[in-house]
Every structure is written in C-alpha cells, then in structure tokens.
C-alpha cells in the first residue's frame, strides 16, 4: 500500500502540481484538495504548497488561513496529522498559529530566487527522517516574504527544543533571525520551511539536484510503516 498525501490548492497557489509530481516521484499518491472544501478526503498527510495565495495581499498567507479547508487542517494538525508547509504554506502555518513567529518581507526588499544551501538541524520530524542531522543540502529558494521573525523568548524556546529544523548556510537570503529556514512544532508533525523541496526531486530540472526528495520519502516511510 502507499500513502495518500493531500495538496491544497488555494486561489493563487502555484506549486500545487509540482508538489503532486514530487509526491508521485517519491512513490506516494497525491490527492488534490480544494480550499473551499472542509474535507481532507481522508488523506494521511497534507502539504500546503508554495505560491501567492490570494495574491499574498494583506500579508503572505493571511487570507488563506481563513479558508474552510484550513479549519480542518488546523484541527487535525493539532491531533497529529502530518502537515508540511512550503514557502507560502509555511507562511499560512504561522498565520494559523500552528507554528510560532511570523514571516516578513526579505530584508533586501527584493524577491529572491537561488539555489540555497541549508543544514538539516532536526532529522526526527515526520518530514525529515530520511536526512541525517547536520546534513548539508541545496534546495531552491524563491520568495518575497521569507524573513522569519519571533520574539526572543520564542526563539530561545525553538533553539532549546531543537525545533529549528533547517538553517541557511553561507548566506542568509532574507534576514531571517538565527538564519532560520524552517521550523517544526513540538510534536514534529507540522513542519514549515521557505525553500522548495518539491523543486529538487529530478536531476534534469531546475538546479539538477535531488536534495528535496527525502521530504517525501520520509513521510511515505512513516505512513507506510505506521
């Protein structure tokens, strides 16, 4: 059997089909979810993909957070459903308070698209077990609002609990505090990050690296072995 992984399409989602492809490449079954439906079609995990939901008007992710589908995602994530937020998905997760802190415009005020070096800091989350802690990987990054901020207390807590899942290496592309590229919730089922693992699953495409594939194989193994 394989796992069914839902990918939510909001108006303005851009990487929904890419994410579905990445799930397929990893050997799982992608399931399209629609923002107006409360139902998650009984999927085993959910990915909130990249894009500009609602144009990212107001704040990135702020309007999407109030869609019907998010009511269910929030409820089930709290009950342990694995949820991965990539870029806009990460922004939605912070707006929904499933992850602490907030996302602001890049400190250099420009959109930035680059092949970004990261360190995997936490290889125990639902989405990172196929990495090893400390592993250095390259994943494409592309965003306007990638600056992770949180108050001192929250930052200290994240660091102390090992909940910084990914950190930027060599170059901080957006002014994120503590070079944070991605974080996890306490339970490790909800993970958000700015870089785009779904764009790094095929050797011919994009930067030609496949460093993003373990996200999808990690969750697949977890779900199949569960």
């Amino acid at each position, binding site marked *: 059997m394989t796992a069914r992984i839902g990918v939510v399409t909001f108006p303005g989602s851009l990487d929904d089909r890419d994410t579905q492809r990445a799930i397929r490449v990893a050997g799982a079954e992608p399931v399209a979810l629609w923002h107006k439906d409360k139902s998650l079609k009984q999927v085993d995990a959910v990915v909130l993909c990249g894009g500009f939901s*609602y144009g990212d*008007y107001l704040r990135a992710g702020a309007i999407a957070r109030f869609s019907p589908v998010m009511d269910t995602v929030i409820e089930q994530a709290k009950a342990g459903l694995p949820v991965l937020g990539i870029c806009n998905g990460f922004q939605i997760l912070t707006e929904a308070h499933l992850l602490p802190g907030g996302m602001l415009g890049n400190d250099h005020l420009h959109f930035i698209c680059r092949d970004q070096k990261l360190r995997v800091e936490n290889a125990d989350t639902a989405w990172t077990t196929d990495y090893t802690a400390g592993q250095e990987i390259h994943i494409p990054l592309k965003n306007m609002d990638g600056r992770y901020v949180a108050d001192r207390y929250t930052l200290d807590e994240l660091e102390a609990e090992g909940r910084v899942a990914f950190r930027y290496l060599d170059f901080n592309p957006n002014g994120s505090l503590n070079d944070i590229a991605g974080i996890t919730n306490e339970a490790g089922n909800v993970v958000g990050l700015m870089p785009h693992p779904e764009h790094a699953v095929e050797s011919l495409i994009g930067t030609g690296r496949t460093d993003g594939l373990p996200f999808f194989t990690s969750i697949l193994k977890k779900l199949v072995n569960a």
Partner: protein
Amino acid sequence: MARVVVDVMLKPEILDPQGQAVQRALPRLGFEGISDVRQGKRFELEVDGPVDEAALARIHDLAESFLANTVIEDFTVRVESEEAVAEAVK
C-alpha cells in the same frame, strides 16, 4: 522631535487589488457592513527640530517626488498631534 505622518493611497479611480482582497475576505470572517476597503501606505517620519511651515513644505515635496508616484497615488502630510493620538482607540 516631532512625528510627521505621510499617508499614501492609490487614487480613487485606480484599481486597489489589495484593498479588494481584504474586502472580499470580510464576509468569510463574519464581518458585514463594510462597503469598501482601500489599502495604502503610512510613513512615520521623525523630524529633528521644529515642524514649521518650511519643514512641512519640504516634507510635502518629499512625498510628492519620492514617497508617492502621483501618476497613480494621492498623499496627505500631517503632524501627528496630541489630539489625533488621543482619538485613536488602542
């Protein structure tokens, strides 16, 4: 030191996609009775020295030539006074 506020809004005839997106989201959040939303920018300038006519005129120039593009935006300049602050509902 005084604070001068420059508000920059899109001209009324110009499409404001951001304001529209906010407005369209309101019913979903259970808000009724707001017939229009416009979103603009607010600049808070901390001015050294007295904010006299001359200073305001200079800030007006700044707003016109730099903070706003008057092809598509209108702006207002005002000194943030005690009264205005008092009126704010925090």
